[in-house]
């Protein structure tokens, strides 16, 4: 895990912890705040009780005055206004309390006061004319015990803000001597009422008590509530729609509760409200800034700070520990990197060092294959080629893996012929399958476009790996190679769906996950005899991953597997490939032995390589092209020739002592006095590791060829670079030699034509072998039955052995294997197996010959051989004569003997030997004849 990721995770965890702490503290704080507000509301209700008690008490005192005066009137001894005021003046206990007696029926609202005007000590008159207090005098209660209270107003006598408790009294009008109603007012300073709130300050320092009427006008005005009207103040600093505003006024003037609002300083404040129970027209408001009542701290910052600090310390500690281990890991990684670089160096060196001798081995072996007429030698040589190619394949796999691991593997998309690629794949795998007696089924969607765009080499490598594995791990049964296609959304691309199904050993479920691991071999114990490095599938999967795909595997252990993948490829030519299977059969039928593709006697090449055997290989590979080849063993020698002679193409080995290929090239290119200014220079290299191609082209080479040299590739390069006027097509072989194989032969399931051709070399030989096989079939079958009836196990075994050999020659591999099995039983005296299998063997034999019968009807290209079969005696005499003539170097007589032998048909088991003799004579390779004759059974 990356260091950054760990730190991020740590920080996220820290954040979650802090979030929890804050959330928890916030919840607790909210609960605490709600409790505080609830307590504040209770305080308001308590305050209301105190105020109510006070108001009722004061009203009660006012009522006592009124009662006394009214009782006097009721008793017939009414008081005059002056007497009443005099009484009140005596009855009131506090000098702050004024008594006013006002005659409301007088428009001037005049009366007398217990106290004179402050500005005139002799003036006891009082007037409320200019004080807006008595708009609705009828609302003033006449009942005892009901609080009748004015708003806060200015006492006209002393200019002090006051409130007044009221009641009506009857006094005697001095002039009319009648009773007259007057309003009795017990006037008290508002400050007296405010003093009742002082106790609340102990509990809430900044609480402010206000009392308002229904319109919001103040009786008692808290300091912080600006404006003369509470509701106006609310509107000024709180944006609410009319519905909310009306709801607020309704609640404040009808019930107890708490609300929050914004004050003039844009601070949030809490207002608790409750109606004064003693009267329905006054309402108590308790105001307090919200910050004084509730805590706004989301969390205890000290606690949070300490937690953050602790977490940071933990983070730093983790970081340091992580860093320590990272340093160690970096060192280990560096060491691993160096080891990997050493491995790459080793691989590079190995590539060169192995490929260079392999070039010699395979090149010279190719010469042997081309020039030898001796069957055994050719067979050995074929084995060398197979082994060499296997070794090369191994090296290539290891190199590919090193490239993939180093991240240097490139996917190089090119246009390619799908049919061509498929041909190569099928050619490669079909022969191998047939050699093992496996049925090879091919199912190709004919709609696949002819020319696709993709990395042909890597795709081929992937499929080859899968197919090779299928063959390797399948002992019997079949291999089915399917290539399907799906159209993609983009018109210029298709999705190839490739699958290979075998009836092989299968893969155990527990091994599935190891399938794509490098150097892992599944079921090693069981498959120990199967060659392989365990790299193939790993490389194939890596390539597919690079191409955006992957291998899918379905397998049943012991029953077989299906490997498949889908791959999107570009389309360059939409033309469909058509029936590939048919096309392939034709290709097979037209297969020919190696034949040089061109001759260029006028062309001249220079090849520079420090290894003499490589020069020999190179020369021999081009022997039949008749090109003149100059060889040089060092860069300097090459430069010397390059300076003097004109060459059509120059080949330079890359790795040479003293002066390597690139240095030599640079020197050559730097020459001005050379006839080779335009001569293409091609690099010969055993170094096939990644990046080399680009490096050679960048270095100035026109092309490059890897060693061991692929003869076809070499010839293709030469055709490309040598001027057309110097090349001419190679002379065609005698058309009569290689004849077409009838189509029906390809339809015979029991016969693998390709395997047969490999054994027989040419179509002609193969056809002869088929006819001979057919001709002798009835006789052989009868003889086998006779020996079986007679219980002659020895001869029976010999005949079955012959059937095994002849069947293998024509490509009847299954029949051959069956015969081999019975042969082994015969040799082991296992009569039971022999007896039980013989019927089936003969049935298959006869069935096959039955299928070959149409050969007798073919008169066209291949004439039926009506020659007499040579006797064994004549044949042995002829062989002896040939050996003698060869020993005496009398080749004319050799030719005569062979020509005379051509008048006879040879037994099928000698047919191949005679053909080899004839070919040796035709090629003037007389020295091969003793070897052919001394060779054992083919």
């Amino acid at each position: 895990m990356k260091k950054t990721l760990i730190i991020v995770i740590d920080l996220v965890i820290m954040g979650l912890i802090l979030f929890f702490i804050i959330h928890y503290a916030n919840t607790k704080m909210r609960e605490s705040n709600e409790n505080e507000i609830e307590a504040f509301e209770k305080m308001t209700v308590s305050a209301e009780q105190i105020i109510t008690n006070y108001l009722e008490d004061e009203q009660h005192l006012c009522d006592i005055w009124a009662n006394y005066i009214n009782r006097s009137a009721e008793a017939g001894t009414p008081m005059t206004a002056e007497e009443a005021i005099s009484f009140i003046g005596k009855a009131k206990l506090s000098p702050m309390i004024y008594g006013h007696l006002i005659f409301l029926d007088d428009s001037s609202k005049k009366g007398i006061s217990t106290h004179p005007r402050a500005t005139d000590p002799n003036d006891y008159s009082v007037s409320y004319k200019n004080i807006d207090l008595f708009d609705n005098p009828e609302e003033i209660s006449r009942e005892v015990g009901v609080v009748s209270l004015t708003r806060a107003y200015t006492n006209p006598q002393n200019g002090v803000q006051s409130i007044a408790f009221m009641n009506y009294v009857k006094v005697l009008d001095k002039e009319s001597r009648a009773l007259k109603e007057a309003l009795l007012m017990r006037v008290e300073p508002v400050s007296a009422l405010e003093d009742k709130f002082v106790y609340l300050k102990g509990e809430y320092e900044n609480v402010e008590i206000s009392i308002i009427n229904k319109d919001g006008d103040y009786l008692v005005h808290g300091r912080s509530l600006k404006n003369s009207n509470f509701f106006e103040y609310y509107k000024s600093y709180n944006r609410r729609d009319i519905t909310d505003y009306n709801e607020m006024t309704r609640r404040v003037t009808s019930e107890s509760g708490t609300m929050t609002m914004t004050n003039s300083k844009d601070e949030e404040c809490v207002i608790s409200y409750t109606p004064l129970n003693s009267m329905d027209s006054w309402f108590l408001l308790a105001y307090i800034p919200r910050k004084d009542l509730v805590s706004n701290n989301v969390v205890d910052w000290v606690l949070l700070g300490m937690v953050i600090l602790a977490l940071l310390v933990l983070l730093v500690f983790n970081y340091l520990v992580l860093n320590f281990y990272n340093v160690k890991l970096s060192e280990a990684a560096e060491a691993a990197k160096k080891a990997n670089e050493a491995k790459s160096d080793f691989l590079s060196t190995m590539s060169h060092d192995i490929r260079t001798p392999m070039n010699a081995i395979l090149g010279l072996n190719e010469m042997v294959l081309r020039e030898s007429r001796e069957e055994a030698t050719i067979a050995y040589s074929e084995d060398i080629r197979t082994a060499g190619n296997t070794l090369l394949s191994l090296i290539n796999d290891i190199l590919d893996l090193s490239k993939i691991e180093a991240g240097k593997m490139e996917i190089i998309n090119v246009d390619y012929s799908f049919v061509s690629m498929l041909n190569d794949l099928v050619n490669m795998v079909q022969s191998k399958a047939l050699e093992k007696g496996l049925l090879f089924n091919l199912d190709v969607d004919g709609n696949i476009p002819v020319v696709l765009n993709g990395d042909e080499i890597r795709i081929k490598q992937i499929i080859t790996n899968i197919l090779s594995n299928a063959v390797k791990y399948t002992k019997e049964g079949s291999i089915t190679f399917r290539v399907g296609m799906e159209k993609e959304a983009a018109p210029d691309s298709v999705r190839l769906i490739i699958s290979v199904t075998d009836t092989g050993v299968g893969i155990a479920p527990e091994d599935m996950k190891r399938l794509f691991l490098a150097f892992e071999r599944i079921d090693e114990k069981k498959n120990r005899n199967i060659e392989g490095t365990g790299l193939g599938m790993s490389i194939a999967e890596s390539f597919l991953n690079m191409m955006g795909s992957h291998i899918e595997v379905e397998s049943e252990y012991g029953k077989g597997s299906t490997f498949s993948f889908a791959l999107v490829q570009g389309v360059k030519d939409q033309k469909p490939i058509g029936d590939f299977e048919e096309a392939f059969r034709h290709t097979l039928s037209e297969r020919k032995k190696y034949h040089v593709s061109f001759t260029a006697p006028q062309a001249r090449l220079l090849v520079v390589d420090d290894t003499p055997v490589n020069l020999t290989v190179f020369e021999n590979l081009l022997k039949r092209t008749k090109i003149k080849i100059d060889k040089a063993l060092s860069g300097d020698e090459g430069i010397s020739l390059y300076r003097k002679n004109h060459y059509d193409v120059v080949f330079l080995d890359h790795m040479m002592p003293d002066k390597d290929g690139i240095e030599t090239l640079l020197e050559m290119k730097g020459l001005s006095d050379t006839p080779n200014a335009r001569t293409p220079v091609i690099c010969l290299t055993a170094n096939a590791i990644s990046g080399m191609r680009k490096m050679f082209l960048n270095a100035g080479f026109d092309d490059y060829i890897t060693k061991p040299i692929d003869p076809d590739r070499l010839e293709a390069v030469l055709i490309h670079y040598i001027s057309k006027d110097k090349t001419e097509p190679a002379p065609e072989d005698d058309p009569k030699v290689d004849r077409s194989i009838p189509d029906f032969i390809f339809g015979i399931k029991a016969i693998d034509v390709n395997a047969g051709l490999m054994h027989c070399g040419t179509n002609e030989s193969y056809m002869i072998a088929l006819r001979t096989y057919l001709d002798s079939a009835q006789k052989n079958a009868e003889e086998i039955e006779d020996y079986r009836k007679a219980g002659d196990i020895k001869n029976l075994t010999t005949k079955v052995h012959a059937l095994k050999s002849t069947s293998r020659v024509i490509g009847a591999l299954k029949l051959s294997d069956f015969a081999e099995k019975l042969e082994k039983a015969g040799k082991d005296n296992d009569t039971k197996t022999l007896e039980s299998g013989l019927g089936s063997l003969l049935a298959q034999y006869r069935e096959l010959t039955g299928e070959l019968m149409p050969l007798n009807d073919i008169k066209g290209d291949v004439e039926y051989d009506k020659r007499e079969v040579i006797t064994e005696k004549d044949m042995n005499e002829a062989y002896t004569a040939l050996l003698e003539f060869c020993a005496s170097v009398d080749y004319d007589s050799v030719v005569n003997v062979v020509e005379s032998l051509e008048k006879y048909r040879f037994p099928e088991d000698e047919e191949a030997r005679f053909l080899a003799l004839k070919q040796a004579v035709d090629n003037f390779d007389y020295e091969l004849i003793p070897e052919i004759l001394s060779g054992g059974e083919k």
Partner: protein
Amino acid sequence: MRNQRGESPKKLLASVMAAAVVLSMTACQKKADNEEAFNPALSTDTECTIRVAGNYSNFESLESEFERFYEYYPNVSLNYVYLDNYNDTIESALMSDEAPDIYVTASWMLDDKRYDTLFENAEVLSDPSLNIDLDCIRKDVRWTDENGDILMLPIFTRSYGMLVNMDIFEKNGLKVPDDYEGLMDVCEKLKAAGYETPVMGANQTTVAGMYYSFSFPLFCNDVIKNPGSAEALNSLEKSRGEMLRPALEKIKTFVDRKYLNPKLCSAEIEDDYNAVIMRFFEGDVPMMLGSGDMVSGTAKRESKSEAFTKAPFKYKFYVVPTGEDGGYFLSAVSLFFSVNKNSENLEMTNEFIRFLSREKELGNMAAVKRLITPTNDFSLDEVYSSLEGFPQERSFSYHATGLNDAAAKEFRAAAYNVANGIMTVDEAVSAYGSIFEQGQGRQKQLDKQ
């Protein structure tokens, strides 16, 4: 006590008229000082309560200053107390146990014996030891007593002029005129643009009526230019009626040319305050005549006008350019503060006054109330921005004219009669001294009918 040109026989108030150059230089210096941040002179921990008594039932602009003062003195409690029947109760209040520390005074109180105690109890604000900077107050609204002492701090002033719908002017590519000729030209163009009556106002004889705002400042300017004329006008000497002619003729011209339509104004504008504002907010009146008091009511009525809410427009206050060289900035103090020198917290009270008597604070108060600041800084309320840098020679206070209320009433009555066709200009001029009385008589007859 009287203002700079007042000639009250009882309390002669000497005006302090320093040379304009010296004053302006001093003002500049003082202005720079004044704009500096307020530095508390007392301990900021001081705890006390200060009461301000006044006749505004609601004094939010003052309460906003309380809040600003708390930033320096958080433990001081400032309370505004509205006194019922203020004019009768303030004197008693000053003598009570709950006597206010600051109380509202007015210039007219100076002439009323009943209020002697108000000024006897007033602190001398110009006492250098108090360090109250009074130089920021415009000289035409600065009041001193015969000793040159300042007992009253002007808080708000008012003027007379017109509200101009700036959007109409802008839409018609017009500039607000700055002289009489320009005013006539603009009215003509506005009429051509479809505004039948470019100038409106309350067709009344009050000081907030349109004729007082339209041409009384012009009349005052003529009085100031004719020293001694004020005394004769105040005595209602008939011969002084000619002084009214230029102002009356301009009213007549406007009515004749239908720039002003008294009947239409009567029909559409019921009073000289609320109705004037609401009619102006209809948005189709280019110029609405009125007093500064009327302007003070605009802010709160913007939201109450459906038309203005739907289609708000920009408006400003201008003096009416009835003079050939321009208009006349006639100002009058609408409210003073005096300090109770017997205050229990006199030091802190003076500190509050020191805090208040700065361009910024007085400007803020005026802006909240939308009245005209007594200082020279008109930048705090854009509505009055036209007064910024108004020429000194055309700026004066009402009291500088020396005119009394009787002369002013005569002018208002004459203007109303001329505009409404009750009198010709000649008749009005010749009837000077009895026009208001005749009007009252006519009103009584109408009432009887």
